[in-house]
Protein backbone atom coordinates (compact mmCIF):
# COMPACT_ATOMS: atom_id res chain seq x y z
CA UNK A 1 0.00 0.00 0.00
CA UNK A 2 1.23 3.48 -0.75
CA UNK A 3 1.02 6.43 1.58
CA UNK A 4 -2.04 8.47 0.71
CA UNK A 5 -2.43 12.05 1.83
CA UNK A 6 -6.17 11.43 1.84
CA UNK A 7 -5.97 9.01 4.75
CA UNK A 8 -6.69 5.32 4.79
CA UNK A 9 -7.29 3.74 1.40
CA UNK A 10 -10.91 2.81 0.86
CA UNK A 11 -11.84 5.42 3.39
CA UNK A 12 -14.99 7.42 2.85
CA UNK A 13 -14.83 10.60 4.97
CA UNK A 14 -18.45 11.50 4.17
CA UNK A 15 -19.66 8.14 5.47
CA UNK A 16 -17.47 8.44 8.60
CA UNK A 17 -18.84 11.91 9.31
CA UNK A 18 -22.43 10.76 8.72
CA UNK A 19 -22.14 7.88 11.22
CA UNK A 20 -20.44 10.15 13.76
CA UNK A 21 -23.12 12.83 13.27
CA UNK A 22 -25.78 10.19 13.96
CA UNK A 23 -24.01 9.31 17.22
CA UNK A 24 -23.86 12.97 18.23
CA UNK A 25 -27.54 13.50 17.37
CA UNK A 26 -28.69 10.47 19.38
CA UNK A 27 -26.54 11.30 22.40
CA UNK A 28 -27.67 14.95 22.35
CA UNK A 29 -31.31 13.84 22.54
CA UNK A 30 -30.44 11.56 25.47
CA UNK A 31 -28.46 14.34 27.18
CA UNK A 32 -31.34 16.83 26.83
CA UNK A 33 -33.78 14.30 28.26
CA UNK A 34 -31.42 13.60 31.15
CA UNK A 35 -31.08 17.32 31.85
CA UNK A 36 -34.74 17.67 32.81
CA UNK A 37 -34.01 16.05 36.14
CA UNK A 38 -30.75 17.88 36.82
CA UNK A 39 -31.60 20.44 39.49
CA UNK A 40 -29.45 20.10 42.60
CA UNK A 41 -25.71 19.78 43.17
CA UNK A 42 -26.14 16.03 43.78
CA UNK A 43 -27.87 15.80 40.38
CA UNK A 44 -25.21 17.78 38.58
CA UNK A 45 -22.14 16.17 40.19
CA UNK A 46 -23.39 12.68 40.97
CA UNK A 47 -26.42 12.12 38.71
CA UNK A 48 -28.66 12.04 41.78
CA UNK A 49 -26.81 8.83 42.80
CA UNK A 50 -29.52 7.04 40.85
CA UNK A 51 -27.56 4.78 38.50
CA UNK A 52 -27.50 1.04 39.18
CA UNK A 53 -24.25 -0.86 39.63
CA UNK A 54 -24.40 -2.47 36.17
CA UNK A 55 -25.20 0.86 34.49
CA UNK A 56 -22.34 2.54 36.30
CA UNK A 57 -20.04 -0.38 35.45
CA UNK A 58 -20.74 0.10 31.73
CA UNK A 59 -20.20 3.85 32.14
CA UNK A 60 -16.88 3.22 33.91
CA UNK A 61 -15.80 1.06 30.99
CA UNK A 62 -16.85 3.94 28.71
CA UNK A 63 -14.89 6.41 30.81
CA UNK A 64 -11.78 4.22 31.09
CA UNK A 65 -11.42 2.75 27.60
CA UNK A 66 -9.98 5.78 25.86
CA UNK A 67 -8.97 6.08 22.24
CA UNK A 68 -5.44 5.39 23.49
CA UNK A 69 -6.45 1.99 24.78
CA UNK A 70 -8.49 1.05 21.72
CA UNK A 71 -6.39 2.35 18.81
CA UNK A 72 -3.15 2.55 20.79
CA UNK A 73 -3.05 -0.97 22.24
CA UNK A 74 -4.31 -2.68 19.06
CA UNK A 75 -1.61 -0.81 17.14
CA UNK A 76 1.08 -1.57 19.69
CA UNK A 77 0.25 -5.29 19.51
CA UNK A 78 0.24 -5.20 15.70
CA UNK A 79 3.70 -3.58 15.56
CA UNK A 80 5.42 -4.58 18.81
CA UNK A 81 3.52 -7.77 19.49
CA UNK A 82 3.56 -9.02 23.04
CA UNK A 83 4.85 -5.77 24.60
CA UNK A 84 1.62 -4.06 23.55
CA UNK A 85 -0.34 -6.71 25.43
CA UNK A 86 1.57 -5.88 28.63
CA UNK A 87 -0.11 -2.45 28.76
CA UNK A 88 -3.59 -3.93 28.79
CA UNK A 89 -2.67 -6.31 31.61
CA UNK A 90 -1.51 -3.41 33.82
CA UNK A 91 -4.67 -1.44 32.97
CA UNK A 92 -6.84 -4.43 33.97
CA UNK A 93 -5.10 -5.75 37.11
CA UNK A 94 -5.20 -2.16 38.45
CA UNK A 95 -8.95 -2.55 38.95
CA UNK A 96 -8.38 -4.96 41.82
CA UNK A 97 -6.89 -2.07 43.83
CA UNK A 98 -10.09 -0.13 43.23
CA UNK A 99 -12.29 -3.12 44.03
CA UNK A 100 -10.59 -4.32 47.21
CA UNK A 101 -9.30 -1.13 48.78
CA UNK A 102 -10.99 1.98 47.46
CA UNK A 103 -14.44 1.90 45.79
CA UNK A 104 -16.80 1.01 48.62
CA UNK A 105 -15.04 2.92 51.39
CA UNK A 106 -14.84 5.99 49.18
CA UNK A 107 -18.54 5.77 48.31
CA UNK A 108 -19.45 5.64 52.00
CA UNK A 109 -17.35 8.58 53.13
CA UNK A 110 -17.56 11.11 50.30
CA UNK A 111 -20.16 13.15 48.47
CA UNK A 112 -18.86 14.44 45.15
CA UNK A 113 -15.08 14.56 44.89
CA UNK A 114 -11.84 12.88 45.93
CA UNK A 115 -11.28 15.90 48.22
CA UNK A 116 -14.34 14.90 50.30
CA UNK A 117 -12.59 11.71 51.38
CA UNK A 118 -9.09 13.11 51.81
CA UNK A 119 -10.31 16.07 53.86
CA UNK A 120 -12.78 14.06 55.97
CA UNK A 121 -10.73 14.07 59.15
CA UNK A 122 -8.15 16.70 58.23
CA UNK A 123 -8.05 20.46 58.26
CA UNK A 124 -10.43 21.17 55.37
CA UNK A 125 -8.94 24.04 53.43
CA UNK A 126 -5.31 22.96 52.87
CA UNK A 127 -6.22 19.32 52.13
CA UNK A 128 -9.05 20.23 49.76
CA UNK A 129 -6.76 22.67 47.95
CA UNK A 130 -4.17 19.89 47.57
CA UNK A 131 -6.78 17.36 46.39
CA UNK A 132 -8.21 19.81 43.87
CA UNK A 133 -4.75 20.74 42.57
CA UNK A 134 -3.83 17.14 41.98
CA UNK A 135 -7.27 16.36 40.48
CA UNK A 136 -6.90 19.19 38.02
CA UNK A 137 -3.30 18.32 37.07
CA UNK A 138 -4.13 14.64 36.44
CA UNK A 139 -7.32 15.49 34.55
CA UNK A 140 -5.53 18.15 32.50
CA UNK A 141 -2.80 15.80 31.25
CA UNK A 142 -5.35 13.09 30.52
CA UNK A 143 -7.52 15.64 28.71
CA UNK A 144 -4.59 16.92 26.67
CA UNK A 145 -3.71 13.39 25.61
CA UNK A 146 -7.27 12.76 24.39
CA UNK A 147 -7.53 16.05 22.52
CA UNK A 148 -4.08 15.70 20.95
CA UNK A 149 -5.09 12.22 19.85
CA UNK A 150 -8.17 13.68 18.17
CA UNK A 151 -5.92 15.57 15.74
CA UNK A 152 -4.21 12.39 14.59
CA UNK A 153 -7.52 10.62 14.27
CA UNK A 154 -8.90 13.39 12.09
CA UNK A 155 -5.96 13.06 9.71
CA UNK A 156 -6.45 9.34 9.60
CA UNK A 157 -10.20 9.01 9.28
CA UNK A 158 -11.51 12.17 7.70
CA UNK A 159 -8.62 12.75 5.33
CA UNK A 160 -7.99 16.23 6.78
CA UNK A 161 -4.24 16.76 6.74
CA UNK A 162 -3.85 20.53 7.15
CA UNK A 163 -3.23 21.76 10.70
CA UNK A 164 -5.97 24.38 10.29
CA UNK A 165 -8.54 21.81 9.23
CA UNK A 166 -7.59 19.53 12.13
CA UNK A 167 -7.83 22.46 14.55
CA UNK A 168 -11.38 23.16 13.38
CA UNK A 169 -12.36 19.53 14.01
CA UNK A 170 -10.71 19.57 17.48
CA UNK A 171 -12.71 22.72 18.26
CA UNK A 172 -15.95 21.09 17.09
CA UNK A 173 -15.27 18.01 19.26
CA UNK A 174 -14.57 20.33 22.22
CA UNK A 175 -17.75 22.33 21.73
CA UNK A 176 -19.97 19.21 21.53
CA UNK A 177 -18.32 17.95 24.72
CA UNK A 178 -19.01 21.28 26.52
CA UNK A 179 -22.68 21.03 25.50
CA UNK A 180 -22.92 17.49 26.94
CA UNK A 181 -21.43 18.57 30.27
CA UNK A 182 -23.31 21.87 30.60
CA UNK A 183 -26.69 20.51 29.64
CA UNK A 184 -26.61 16.99 30.94
CA UNK A 185 -24.32 17.24 33.96
CA UNK A 186 -23.17 13.91 35.35
CA UNK A 187 -26.34 12.15 34.22
CA UNK A 188 -25.94 13.21 30.60
CA UNK A 189 -22.22 12.45 30.66
CA UNK A 190 -22.91 9.00 32.08
CA UNK A 191 -25.41 8.17 29.33
CA UNK A 192 -22.92 9.29 26.68
CA UNK A 193 -20.36 6.96 28.25
CA UNK A 194 -22.83 4.07 28.43
CA UNK A 195 -23.81 4.44 24.75
CA UNK A 196 -20.18 4.76 23.70
CA UNK A 197 -19.10 1.71 25.74
CA UNK A 198 -21.88 -0.37 24.18
CA UNK A 199 -20.86 0.68 20.65
CA UNK A 200 -17.15 0.22 21.29
CA UNK A 201 -17.45 -3.22 22.86
CA UNK A 202 -19.98 -4.42 20.27
CA UNK A 203 -17.78 -3.20 17.43
CA UNK A 204 -14.69 -4.83 18.92
CA UNK A 205 -16.60 -8.08 19.51
CA UNK A 206 -17.83 -8.20 15.91
CA UNK A 207 -14.32 -7.62 14.56
CA UNK A 208 -12.83 -10.17 16.95
CA UNK A 209 -15.26 -12.91 15.89
CA UNK A 210 -14.64 -11.98 12.25
CA UNK A 211 -10.85 -12.22 12.64
CA UNK A 212 -11.05 -15.50 14.55
CA UNK A 213 -13.42 -16.95 11.95
CA UNK A 214 -10.82 -16.26 9.26
CA UNK A 215 -8.40 -18.46 11.20
CA UNK A 216 -10.80 -21.27 12.02
CA UNK A 217 -11.21 -19.99 15.60
CA UNK A 218 -7.68 -21.16 16.29
CA UNK A 219 -5.57 -18.62 18.21
CA UNK A 220 -2.37 -20.43 17.32
CA UNK A 221 -3.10 -20.13 13.58
CA UNK A 222 -3.77 -16.41 14.01
CA UNK A 223 -0.45 -15.95 15.82
CA UNK A 224 1.30 -18.00 13.13
CA UNK A 225 -0.17 -15.79 10.40
CA UNK A 226 0.96 -12.64 12.25
CA UNK A 227 4.48 -14.10 12.50
CA UNK A 228 4.51 -14.90 8.76
CA UNK A 229 3.26 -11.41 7.86
CA UNK A 230 5.95 -9.90 10.09
CA UNK A 231 8.74 -11.25 7.89
CA UNK A 232 12.22 -11.57 9.34
CA UNK A 233 11.33 -10.05 12.73
CA UNK A 234 7.93 -11.77 12.84
CA UNK A 235 8.87 -14.38 15.42
CA UNK A 236 9.74 -11.61 17.90
CA UNK A 237 6.07 -10.51 17.90
CA UNK A 238 5.15 -13.45 20.11
CA UNK A 239 7.79 -12.79 22.74
CA UNK A 240 8.21 -10.03 25.30
CA UNK A 241 11.04 -7.55 24.82
CA UNK A 242 10.55 -6.28 21.26
CA UNK A 243 9.83 -2.76 22.50
CA UNK A 244 11.30 -2.66 26.00
CA UNK A 245 14.02 -5.30 25.89
CA UNK A 246 16.62 -3.14 24.18
CA UNK A 247 18.71 -2.01 27.13
CA UNK A 248 18.87 -2.24 30.91
CA UNK A 249 17.44 1.30 31.10
CA UNK A 250 14.46 0.45 28.95
CA UNK A 251 13.84 -2.69 31.00
CA UNK A 252 13.81 -0.65 34.19
CA UNK A 253 11.56 1.86 32.46
CA UNK A 254 9.11 -0.93 31.81
CA UNK A 255 9.00 -1.91 35.50
CA UNK A 256 8.39 1.74 36.31
CA UNK A 257 5.57 1.94 33.76
CA UNK A 258 4.07 -1.30 35.10
CA UNK A 259 3.95 0.16 38.62
CA UNK A 260 2.32 3.39 37.45
CA UNK A 261 -0.30 1.49 35.46
CA UNK A 262 -1.30 -0.87 38.26
CA UNK A 263 -1.34 1.79 40.98
CA UNK A 264 -2.60 4.72 38.91
CA UNK A 265 -6.13 3.63 38.07
CA UNK A 266 -7.48 3.76 41.62
CA UNK A 267 -6.10 7.31 41.88
CA UNK A 268 -7.69 8.71 38.72
CA UNK A 269 -10.18 11.35 39.91
CA UNK A 270 -12.60 10.87 37.01
CA UNK A 271 -12.84 7.18 37.86
CA UNK A 272 -13.23 7.82 41.61
CA UNK A 273 -16.02 10.31 40.98
CA UNK A 274 -18.06 7.67 39.17
CA UNK A 275 -18.51 5.76 42.43
CA UNK A 276 -20.70 8.60 43.74
CA UNK A 277 -23.30 8.07 41.01
CA UNK A 278 -24.70 4.91 42.64
CA UNK A 279 -26.91 4.77 45.74
CA UNK A 280 -24.88 2.42 47.98
CA UNK A 281 -21.45 0.90 48.56
CA UNK A 282 -22.85 -2.43 47.43
CA UNK A 283 -23.78 -0.88 44.08
CA UNK A 284 -20.29 0.63 43.91
CA UNK A 285 -18.90 -2.89 44.28
CA UNK A 286 -21.21 -4.18 41.53
CA UNK A 287 -20.04 -1.30 39.32
CA UNK A 288 -16.42 -2.37 39.66
CA UNK A 289 -17.30 -6.00 38.98
CA UNK A 290 -19.09 -5.03 35.76
CA UNK A 291 -16.25 -2.72 34.82
CA UNK A 292 -13.64 -5.44 35.39
CA UNK A 293 -15.53 -7.95 33.24
CA UNK A 294 -16.17 -5.49 30.39
CA UNK A 295 -12.67 -4.01 30.43
CA UNK A 296 -11.07 -7.46 30.70
CA UNK A 297 -13.07 -8.87 27.81
CA UNK A 298 -12.36 -5.76 25.75
CA UNK A 299 -8.59 -6.14 26.25
CA UNK A 300 -8.86 -9.77 25.17
CA UNK A 301 -10.54 -8.49 21.99
CA UNK A 302 -7.71 -6.02 21.40
CA UNK A 303 -5.23 -8.92 21.63
CA UNK A 304 -7.00 -10.65 18.74
CA UNK A 305 -7.46 -7.37 16.84
CA UNK A 306 -3.80 -6.41 17.24
CA UNK A 307 -2.43 -9.73 15.97
CA UNK A 308 -5.27 -9.80 13.42
CA UNK A 309 -4.20 -6.42 12.03
CA UNK A 310 -0.61 -7.69 11.91
CA UNK A 311 -1.69 -10.84 10.05
CA UNK A 312 -4.31 -9.41 7.68
CA UNK A 313 -3.13 -5.84 7.05
CA UNK A 314 0.57 -6.41 7.69
CA UNK A 315 3.02 -4.32 9.74
CA UNK A 316 4.49 -2.45 6.76
CA UNK A 317 1.09 -1.21 5.59
CA UNK A 318 0.31 -0.05 9.15
CA UNK A 319 3.67 1.67 9.55
CA UNK A 320 3.22 3.54 6.28
CA UNK A 321 -0.34 4.68 6.91
CA UNK A 322 -1.00 8.16 8.31
CA UNK A 323 -1.32 7.79 12.06
CA UNK A 324 1.03 4.76 11.99
CA UNK A 325 0.27 2.36 14.89
CA UNK A 326 -3.04 4.09 15.63
CA UNK A 327 -4.29 3.12 12.19
CA UNK A 328 -4.03 -0.64 12.82
CA UNK A 329 -7.61 -1.11 14.06
CA UNK A 330 -9.23 1.15 11.40
CA UNK A 331 -7.22 -0.56 8.65
CA UNK A 332 -8.30 -3.95 9.95
CA UNK A 333 -11.94 -2.81 9.97
CA UNK A 334 -11.57 -1.67 6.37
CA UNK A 335 -9.96 -4.96 5.32
CA UNK A 336 -12.75 -6.94 6.97
CA UNK A 337 -15.94 -5.02 6.35
CA UNK A 338 -15.09 -2.33 3.81
CA UNK A 339 -15.95 1.36 4.16
CA UNK A 340 -19.08 0.76 6.27
CA UNK A 341 -17.29 -1.07 9.08
CA UNK A 342 -14.43 1.42 8.84
CA UNK A 343 -16.95 4.27 9.16
CA UNK A 344 -18.48 2.62 12.19
CA UNK A 345 -15.12 2.10 13.89
CA UNK A 346 -14.05 5.65 13.02
CA UNK A 347 -17.23 7.06 14.55
CA UNK A 348 -16.75 4.91 17.64
CA UNK A 349 -13.21 6.24 18.00
CA UNK A 350 -14.52 9.83 17.94
CA UNK A 351 -17.32 8.96 20.34
CA UNK A 352 -14.66 7.52 22.64
CA UNK A 353 -12.75 10.79 22.74
CA UNK A 354 -15.97 12.74 23.37
CA UNK A 355 -17.11 10.53 26.23
CA UNK A 356 -13.74 10.42 27.99
CA UNK A 357 -13.18 14.16 27.63
CA UNK A 358 -16.67 14.90 28.99
CA UNK A 359 -15.99 12.71 32.04
CA UNK A 360 -12.68 14.48 32.68
CA UNK A 361 -14.22 17.93 32.31
CA UNK A 362 -17.06 17.31 34.74
CA UNK A 363 -14.58 15.88 37.27
CA UNK A 364 -12.19 18.80 37.09
CA UNK A 365 -15.01 21.35 37.21
CA UNK A 366 -16.68 19.59 40.17
CA UNK A 367 -13.40 19.58 42.05
CA UNK A 368 -12.88 23.28 41.43
CA UNK A 369 -16.43 24.27 42.37
CA UNK A 370 -16.86 21.93 45.33
CA UNK A 371 -13.36 21.86 46.83
CA UNK A 372 -11.87 25.23 45.89
CA UNK A 373 -14.89 27.53 45.53
CA UNK A 374 -17.31 26.16 48.13
CA UNK A 375 -14.84 24.94 50.75
CA UNK A 376 -11.61 26.91 50.35
CA UNK A 377 -12.86 30.30 49.13
CA UNK A 378 -16.30 30.30 50.79
CA UNK A 379 -15.05 28.19 53.75
CA UNK A 380 -17.94 25.76 53.38
CA UNK A 381 -20.49 28.54 53.85
CA UNK A 382 -22.20 28.47 50.46
CA UNK A 383 -25.78 29.49 51.25
CA UNK A 384 -27.04 28.75 47.82
CA UNK A 385 -26.17 25.36 46.30
CA UNK A 386 -27.14 26.83 42.92
CA UNK A 387 -24.14 29.14 43.19
CA UNK A 388 -21.81 26.15 43.49
CA UNK A 389 -23.33 24.42 40.46
CA UNK A 390 -23.15 27.69 38.52
CA UNK A 391 -19.43 27.90 39.32
CA UNK A 392 -19.03 24.27 38.21
CA UNK A 393 -20.73 25.05 34.88
CA UNK A 394 -18.57 28.12 34.26
CA UNK A 395 -15.46 26.09 35.14
CA UNK A 396 -16.56 23.37 32.71
CA UNK A 397 -16.67 25.93 29.89
CA UNK A 398 -13.23 27.29 30.85
CA UNK A 399 -11.76 23.77 30.98
CA UNK A 400 -13.41 22.94 27.67
CA UNK A 401 -11.83 25.99 26.02
CA UNK A 402 -8.44 25.18 27.59
CA UNK A 403 -8.79 21.60 26.29
CA UNK A 404 -9.52 22.86 22.76
CA UNK A 405 -6.52 25.23 22.78
CA UNK A 406 -4.30 22.61 24.45
CA UNK A 407 -5.42 19.98 21.96
CA UNK A 408 -4.58 22.27 19.04
CA UNK A 409 -1.16 23.15 20.48
CA UNK A 410 -0.35 19.54 21.46
CA UNK A 411 -1.61 18.14 18.13
CA UNK A 412 0.99 15.70 16.86
CA UNK A 413 2.75 15.32 20.21
CA UNK A 414 3.63 11.94 21.68
CA UNK A 415 0.35 11.18 23.42
CA UNK A 416 1.49 7.96 25.07
CA UNK A 417 3.73 9.98 27.35
CA UNK A 418 0.87 12.32 28.37
CA UNK A 419 -1.25 9.32 29.38
CA UNK A 420 1.67 7.72 31.22
CA UNK A 421 2.22 11.04 32.98
CA UNK A 422 -1.42 11.16 34.11
CA UNK A 423 -1.16 7.62 35.50
CA UNK A 424 2.19 8.29 37.19
CA UNK A 425 0.90 11.48 38.85
CA UNK A 426 -2.31 9.72 39.94
CA UNK A 427 -0.33 6.81 41.41
CA UNK A 428 2.11 9.14 43.18
CA UNK A 429 -0.02 12.05 44.37
CA UNK A 430 -3.44 10.46 44.90
CA UNK A 431 -3.21 6.77 45.73
CA UNK A 432 -0.85 6.99 48.76
CA UNK A 433 -2.97 9.78 50.24
CA UNK A 434 -6.22 7.86 49.68
CA UNK A 435 -4.90 4.61 51.17
CA UNK A 436 -3.32 6.29 54.21
CA UNK A 437 -6.46 8.28 54.78
CA UNK A 438 -8.72 5.21 54.65
CA UNK A 439 -6.57 2.75 56.59
CA UNK A 440 -4.08 4.57 58.83
CA UNK A 441 -5.41 6.01 62.06
CA UNK A 442 -2.38 8.21 62.76
CA UNK A 443 -2.43 9.89 59.31
CA UNK A 444 -3.00 13.65 59.53
CA UNK A 445 -3.16 16.92 57.62
CA UNK A 446 0.59 17.31 57.37
CA UNK A 447 0.99 13.76 56.03
CA UNK A 448 -1.77 14.30 53.45
CA UNK A 449 -0.13 17.49 52.20
CA UNK A 450 3.34 15.91 52.05
CA UNK A 451 2.20 12.85 50.11
CA UNK A 452 -0.03 14.78 47.70
CA UNK A 453 2.33 17.64 46.92
CA UNK A 454 5.42 15.44 47.22
CA UNK A 455 4.01 12.87 44.79
CA UNK A 456 2.81 15.59 42.43
CA UNK A 457 6.08 17.53 42.42
CA UNK A 458 8.41 14.53 42.20
CA UNK A 459 6.51 12.88 39.34
CA UNK A 460 6.28 16.09 37.32
CA UNK A 461 9.90 17.16 37.92
CA UNK A 462 11.18 13.71 36.94
CA UNK A 463 9.08 13.76 33.75
CA UNK A 464 10.28 17.24 32.78
CA UNK A 465 13.88 16.06 33.08
CA UNK A 466 13.24 12.69 31.42
CA UNK A 467 14.08 11.63 27.86
CA UNK A 468 10.36 11.87 27.07
CA UNK A 469 10.67 15.66 27.15
CA UNK A 470 14.18 16.26 25.82
CA UNK A 471 17.24 14.46 24.53
CA UNK A 472 15.86 11.97 22.02
CA UNK A 473 16.27 12.91 18.35
CA UNK A 474 13.34 13.49 16.01
CA UNK A 475 14.25 10.30 14.17
CA UNK A 476 13.77 8.05 17.21
CA UNK A 477 10.79 5.70 17.45
CA UNK A 478 9.33 7.94 20.15
CA UNK A 479 11.00 11.36 19.76
CA UNK A 480 11.19 13.78 22.68
CA UNK A 481 8.60 16.49 23.07
CA UNK A 482 11.17 19.29 22.81
CA UNK A 483 13.73 19.08 20.01
CA UNK A 484 17.04 20.90 19.70
CA UNK A 485 17.89 21.10 23.41
CA UNK A 486 18.78 18.35 25.83
CA UNK A 487 18.29 19.02 29.54
CA UNK A 488 17.37 15.52 30.68
CA UNK A 489 19.18 13.89 33.61
CA UNK A 490 16.62 11.33 34.76
CA UNK A 491 17.22 8.19 32.66
CA UNK A 492 13.67 6.77 32.68
CA UNK A 493 10.63 8.03 30.77
CA UNK A 494 8.28 6.95 33.52
CA UNK A 495 8.89 8.32 37.04
CA UNK A 496 6.70 5.80 38.92
CA UNK A 497 9.44 3.61 40.33
CA UNK A 498 10.90 6.62 42.19
CA UNK A 499 7.93 8.92 42.76
CA UNK A 500 5.40 6.34 44.05
CA UNK A 501 7.56 4.94 46.90
CA UNK A 502 8.75 8.48 47.63
CA UNK A 503 5.16 9.72 48.03
CA UNK A 504 4.34 6.86 50.43
CA UNK A 505 7.48 7.70 52.41
CA UNK A 506 6.67 11.43 52.48
CA UNK A 507 3.13 10.69 53.66
CA UNK A 508 4.57 8.74 56.58
CA UNK A 509 7.28 11.31 57.34
CA UNK A 510 4.90 14.28 57.19
CA UNK A 511 2.55 12.46 59.54
CA UNK A 512 5.06 11.59 62.24
CA UNK A 513 6.62 15.06 62.13
CA UNK A 514 3.28 16.62 63.06
CA UNK A 515 1.66 16.24 66.48
CA UNK A 516 -1.88 16.50 65.11
CA UNK A 517 -4.09 13.51 65.92
CA UNK A 518 -7.73 13.18 64.96
CA UNK A 519 -8.63 9.87 66.60
CA UNK A 520 -12.29 10.77 67.07
CA UNK A 521 -12.70 11.85 63.48
CA UNK A 522 -10.95 8.67 62.36
CA UNK A 523 -13.37 6.63 64.47
CA UNK A 524 -16.26 8.37 62.71
CA UNK A 525 -14.67 7.96 59.28
CA UNK A 526 -13.91 4.28 59.78
CA UNK A 527 -17.36 3.43 61.09
CA UNK A 528 -19.00 5.31 58.23
CA UNK A 529 -16.66 3.78 55.64
CA UNK A 530 -17.26 0.18 56.72
CA UNK A 531 -20.95 0.30 57.59
CA UNK A 532 -22.31 3.01 55.29
CA UNK A 533 -23.95 4.87 58.18
CA UNK A 534 -25.22 8.26 57.03
CA UNK A 535 -23.89 7.78 53.50
CA UNK A 536 -25.39 10.04 50.87
CA UNK A 537 -28.52 8.43 49.49
CA UNK A 538 -30.08 8.49 46.06
CA UNK A 539 -32.07 11.57 45.15
CA UNK A 540 -35.68 10.68 44.39
CA UNK A 541 -37.41 12.61 41.65
Amino acid at each position, binding site marked *: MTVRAAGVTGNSPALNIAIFAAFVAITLVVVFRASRNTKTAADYYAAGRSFTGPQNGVAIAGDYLSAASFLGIAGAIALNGYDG*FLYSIGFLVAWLVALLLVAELLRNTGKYTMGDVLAFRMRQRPVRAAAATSTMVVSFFYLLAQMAGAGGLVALLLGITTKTGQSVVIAVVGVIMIVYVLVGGMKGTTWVQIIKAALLITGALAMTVWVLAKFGFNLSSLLGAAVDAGGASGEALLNPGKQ*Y*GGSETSKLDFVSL*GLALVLGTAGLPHILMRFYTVPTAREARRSVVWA*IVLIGVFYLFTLVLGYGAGAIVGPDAIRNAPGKANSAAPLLAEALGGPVLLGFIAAVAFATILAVVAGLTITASASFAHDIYANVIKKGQVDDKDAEVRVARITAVVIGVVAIVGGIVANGQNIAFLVALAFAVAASANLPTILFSLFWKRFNTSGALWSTYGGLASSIVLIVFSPAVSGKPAGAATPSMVQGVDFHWFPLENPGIVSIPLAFFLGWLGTVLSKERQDDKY*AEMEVRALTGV*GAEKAVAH
Partner: protein
Amino acid sequence: MSTPEPHQDWAEVQAGAEFTELRRRLRVFVFPMTALFLLWYLVYVLLADYAHGFMSTKLVGDINVALVLGLGQFASTFAITALYVRYANRKLDPLATKLRADLEGAGE
Protein backbone atom coordinates in the same frame (compact mmCIF):
# COMPACT_ATOMS: atom_id res chain seq x y z
CA MET B 1 -24.97 15.86 55.51
CA SER B 2 -28.29 15.47 53.83
CA THR B 3 -29.25 12.51 56.00
CA PRO B 4 -30.51 13.52 59.41
CA GLU B 5 -28.82 11.28 61.90
CA PRO B 6 -28.54 10.88 65.64
CA HIS B 7 -25.42 11.92 67.44
CA GLN B 8 -23.05 8.98 67.72
CA ASP B 9 -20.21 8.19 70.01
CA TRP B 10 -18.09 7.02 67.13
CA ALA B 11 -15.14 5.94 69.25
CA GLU B 12 -17.41 3.69 71.28
CA VAL B 13 -18.88 2.10 68.16
CA GLN B 14 -15.39 1.70 66.72
CA ALA B 15 -14.21 -0.11 69.86
CA GLY B 16 -17.28 -2.36 69.97
CA ALA B 17 -17.06 -6.11 69.38
CA GLU B 18 -19.22 -6.17 66.26
CA PHE B 19 -17.37 -3.36 64.54
CA THR B 20 -13.99 -4.85 65.45
CA GLU B 21 -15.16 -8.11 63.91
CA LEU B 22 -16.30 -6.33 60.72
CA ARG B 23 -12.96 -4.58 60.39
CA ARG B 24 -11.08 -7.82 61.03
CA ARG B 25 -13.11 -9.64 58.37
CA LEU B 26 -12.49 -6.88 55.81
CA ARG B 27 -8.77 -6.56 56.47
CA VAL B 28 -8.08 -10.28 56.74
CA PHE B 29 -9.36 -10.64 53.18
CA VAL B 30 -8.33 -7.50 51.32
CA PHE B 31 -4.78 -7.03 52.65
CA PRO B 32 -3.42 -10.52 51.90
CA MET B 33 -5.31 -10.61 48.60
CA THR B 34 -3.84 -7.25 47.55
CA ALA B 35 -0.35 -8.45 48.48
CA LEU B 36 -0.95 -11.64 46.52
CA PHE B 37 -2.13 -10.07 43.26
CA LEU B 38 0.49 -7.32 43.37
CA LEU B 39 3.22 -9.90 43.92
CA TRP B 40 1.90 -12.10 41.09
CA TYR B 41 1.69 -9.06 38.80
CA LEU B 42 5.24 -8.00 39.74
CA VAL B 43 6.63 -11.50 39.14
CA TYR B 44 4.90 -11.52 35.76
CA VAL B 45 6.27 -8.08 34.80
CA LEU B 46 9.80 -9.06 35.87
CA LEU B 47 9.60 -12.33 33.92
CA ALA B 48 8.38 -10.48 30.81
CA ASP B 49 11.16 -7.97 31.32
CA TYR B 50 14.14 -10.13 32.23
CA ALA B 51 13.39 -13.79 31.39
CA HIS B 52 12.82 -13.60 27.64
CA GLY B 53 14.10 -17.11 27.00
CA PHE B 54 11.72 -18.73 29.46
CA MET B 55 8.77 -16.63 28.32
CA SER B 56 9.43 -17.49 24.67
CA THR B 57 9.20 -21.24 25.25
CA LYS B 58 6.49 -22.61 22.97
CA LEU B 59 3.87 -24.84 24.53
CA VAL B 60 1.28 -25.66 21.85
CA GLY B 61 1.68 -24.42 18.26
CA ASP B 62 2.51 -20.72 18.40
CA ILE B 63 1.20 -20.33 21.96
CA ASN B 64 4.09 -19.67 24.33
CA VAL B 65 4.61 -19.30 28.09
CA ALA B 66 4.33 -15.49 27.88
CA LEU B 67 0.84 -15.67 26.36
CA VAL B 68 -0.35 -18.28 28.86
CA LEU B 69 0.97 -16.26 31.83
CA GLY B 70 -0.54 -13.07 30.38
CA LEU B 71 -3.92 -14.75 30.02
CA GLY B 72 -3.32 -16.08 33.53
CA GLN B 73 -3.30 -12.47 34.76
CA PHE B 74 -6.76 -12.05 33.24
CA ALA B 75 -7.95 -15.30 34.81
CA SER B 76 -6.59 -14.41 38.27
CA THR B 77 -8.15 -10.93 38.09
CA PHE B 78 -11.55 -12.43 37.26
CA ALA B 79 -11.13 -15.10 39.95
CA ILE B 80 -10.15 -12.64 42.71
CA THR B 81 -13.10 -10.44 41.75
CA ALA B 82 -15.49 -13.39 42.06
CA LEU B 83 -13.96 -14.52 45.37
CA TYR B 84 -14.24 -11.05 46.86
CA VAL B 85 -17.85 -10.61 45.81
CA ARG B 86 -18.76 -13.96 47.35
CA TYR B 87 -16.85 -13.13 50.54
CA ALA B 88 -18.39 -9.65 50.81
CA ASN B 89 -21.90 -10.95 50.27
CA ARG B 90 -21.53 -13.64 52.90
CA LYS B 91 -19.21 -12.19 55.51
CA LEU B 92 -19.23 -8.39 55.20
CA ASP B 93 -22.65 -7.21 54.05
CA PRO B 94 -24.81 -8.90 56.73
CA LEU B 95 -22.66 -7.53 59.56
CA ALA B 96 -22.36 -4.06 58.00
CA THR B 97 -26.12 -3.90 57.38
CA LYS B 98 -26.86 -4.90 60.98
CA LEU B 99 -24.43 -2.35 62.42
CA ARG B 100 -25.82 0.35 60.18
CA ALA B 101 -29.40 -0.42 61.15
CA ASP B 102 -28.44 -0.39 64.84
CA LEU B 103 -26.68 2.96 64.51
CA GLU B 104 -29.31 4.69 62.39
CA GLY B 105 -32.09 3.44 64.63
CA ALA B 106 -30.30 4.44 67.85
CA GLY B 107 -31.52 8.01 68.00
CA GLU B 108 -35.16 7.43 67.19
